[in-house]
């Protein structure tokens, strides 16, 4: 079985800071990691690959540094890795990202299953997976928390819903976006890490793809970010002291002033 896993390199969230002047993310010096949800996609891909003695290719669209994310995927057991990287791709919104990924996947050609994370922790839209499936014209199941059955023709999955789960059958090839309930990602192996260090990472630029150039990057992005801002920090509360009757009067006054009552 041929599996493709789409991963995104993201800043480690604990460290995200916004520049208060420009209201943009401060990315310098922030360590990058594989989007945590994508770790579950990688693990699930590896499990299927190991059971079906198939192959797994990991792809990412991103800057040259995303090479590190691909090497980490190889250290976990991915067979191949492709970095889709070009200045012309920068500024892409989810549509342009999905379009670019779709062109790369068409170039790869044969695949049985595509796995994505449910969403990226920075962009957070959860749109890329569904858009990609649409562009490739294949069925999709989102929020997958379990693969019950899989063979070359069909797959049965459990989708996590708020009030239970859906069981979905779909023909293959298909695209799944996975949630963290699906597995416990493995740790890398020493041999894998050594292999990753030496691995050749294929790099594709816009010239390697067959897409329409104006659909890439900022130019191909229908979404325009008008403004990014940090919400005002919440002012600290007030602690009332004194006699109960005084405190109640004070509280009611305060609530009226702020038009809560």
């Amino acid at each position, binding site marked *: 079985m041929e599996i493709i896993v789409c991963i995104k390199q993201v800043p480690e969230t604990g460290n995200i800071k916004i520049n208060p002047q420009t209201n943009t993310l401060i990315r310098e010096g922030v360590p990058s990691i594989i989007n945590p949800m994508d770790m579950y996609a990688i693990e699930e891909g590896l499990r299927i690959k190991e059971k079906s003695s198939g192959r797994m290719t990991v792809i990412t669209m991103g800057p040259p540094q995303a090479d590190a994310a691909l090497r980490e995927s190889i250290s976990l057991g991915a067979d191949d890795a492709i970095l889709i990287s070009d200045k012309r791709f920068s500024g892409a919104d989810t549509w342009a990202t999905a379009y670019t990924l779709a062109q790369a996947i068409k170039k790869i050609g044969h695949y049985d299953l595509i796995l994505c994370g449910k969403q990226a922790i920075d962009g957070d839209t959860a749109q890329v997976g569904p858009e990609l499936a649409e562009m490739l014209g294949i069925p999709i199941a989102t929020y997958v928390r379990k693969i019950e059955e899989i063979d070359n023709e069909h797959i049965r999955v459990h989708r996590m819903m708020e009030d239970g789960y859906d069981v979905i059958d779909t023909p293959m090839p298909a695209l799944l976006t996975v949630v963290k309930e699906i597995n416990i990602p*493995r*740790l*890398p*192996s*020493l*041999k*894998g*890490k*050594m292999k990753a*260090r030496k691995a050749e990472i294929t790099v594709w630029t816009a010239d390697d793809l067959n897409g329409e150039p104006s659909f890439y990057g900022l130019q191909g992005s229908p979404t325009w970010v008008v403004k990014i801002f940090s919400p005002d920090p919440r002012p600290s509360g007030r602690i009332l002291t004194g006699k109960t009757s005084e405190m109640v009067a004070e509280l009611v006054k305060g609530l009226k002033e702020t038009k809560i009552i």
Partner: protein
Amino acid sequence: MDYFLTEDQLMIKDLAKRIAEERIKPVRAELDEKEEFPKEIIQEMAKSDMFGIFIPEEFGGLGGRCLDLVLAVEELSRICSGVAISFAATALGSFPIILFGSQKQKEKYLPYVASGKSLCAFALTEPDAGSDASGIKTTARMEGGEYILNGTKQWITNGAEADIYTVIALTNPSKGIRGASAFIVEKGTPGFVFGKKEKKMGIRASSTRELVFSNCRIPAENLISKEGMGFMVAMKTLDQSRPGIGAQAIGIAQGAMEEALEYSHQRVQFGQPISSFQAVQHMLADMATQIEAARALVYSVARYMDSGAKEISKESAMTKLFASDVAMQVTINAVQILGGYGYMRDYPVEKMMRDAKITQIYEGTNQIQRNVIALQMLKERAKGR
């Protein structure tokens, strides 16, 4: 401090640290409480190739040597030395084969060790033979192309969990310890069963069992080296493994110091964090200094061994002696810094203190290490070195 580790060594250290923090830390208290062998964790370590670190490349390992193993054991022990020793004891049990085994024995067993499919154990100690290995009574009698083993080994780490046992037994009892030989015994061999499972003070996640041999027949080809070489095999094996105990000790001490440092910053008494009291600061400073000294010793001896040095008994003994005493001192003081909380099982330092104690005892007590060191000094003096 920067010890100028190679890229591969840093990789081993990082991965061991991740395994320890992500997989072992969440369950260490429970494993200790239930005295449960960490099967799942061992499997994960196997998948991460940790057991390949000390196996030569031609037998499926990574060809790492003493320092590589030391780094892994140290990082695992920083979180839980009970798990770490189950790993390190596999190295110990495989050293007789790595150092003295035939090509055929290496080909047969080492790939299983490297992949983590088989754990190993090393069996020397008996009820009447602890520090004095010459007291062993287990015999191996040659009969019809087979050796027949009889006797009981005691306190064997990885007992019942390991598949491959390297066992020291007398092939010629009249010659005493000069009549000892080393053997490979596979789990499941008829006549080989496991006796008492020990209930221990510390390293409670590890398994410590009796091995009972009653007319246990093993093929002649399972003899390691030659008849009569058993004591030498055992001593060289221990020389090779003692820096691993040193590493276990510095790992435990490092873990305890980190806990104490963190706690001293949080705990407020007399209106200030206890870390502001000089008496506490000095305990922390001594801990850090002792640990760094122990680490420097263990790493440099490991490097000395990896350089191909032949005479290593003295230096190897020093690593274990010094680092284990440091671990004991540091963990006692870590409990002291945490006060009554340190005495409670809610905090990990009491476990670390219990765990530290064993490093002064096994693979030769610290008194025996001093004997080894002094004996070597006197030998060197006699040789005029």
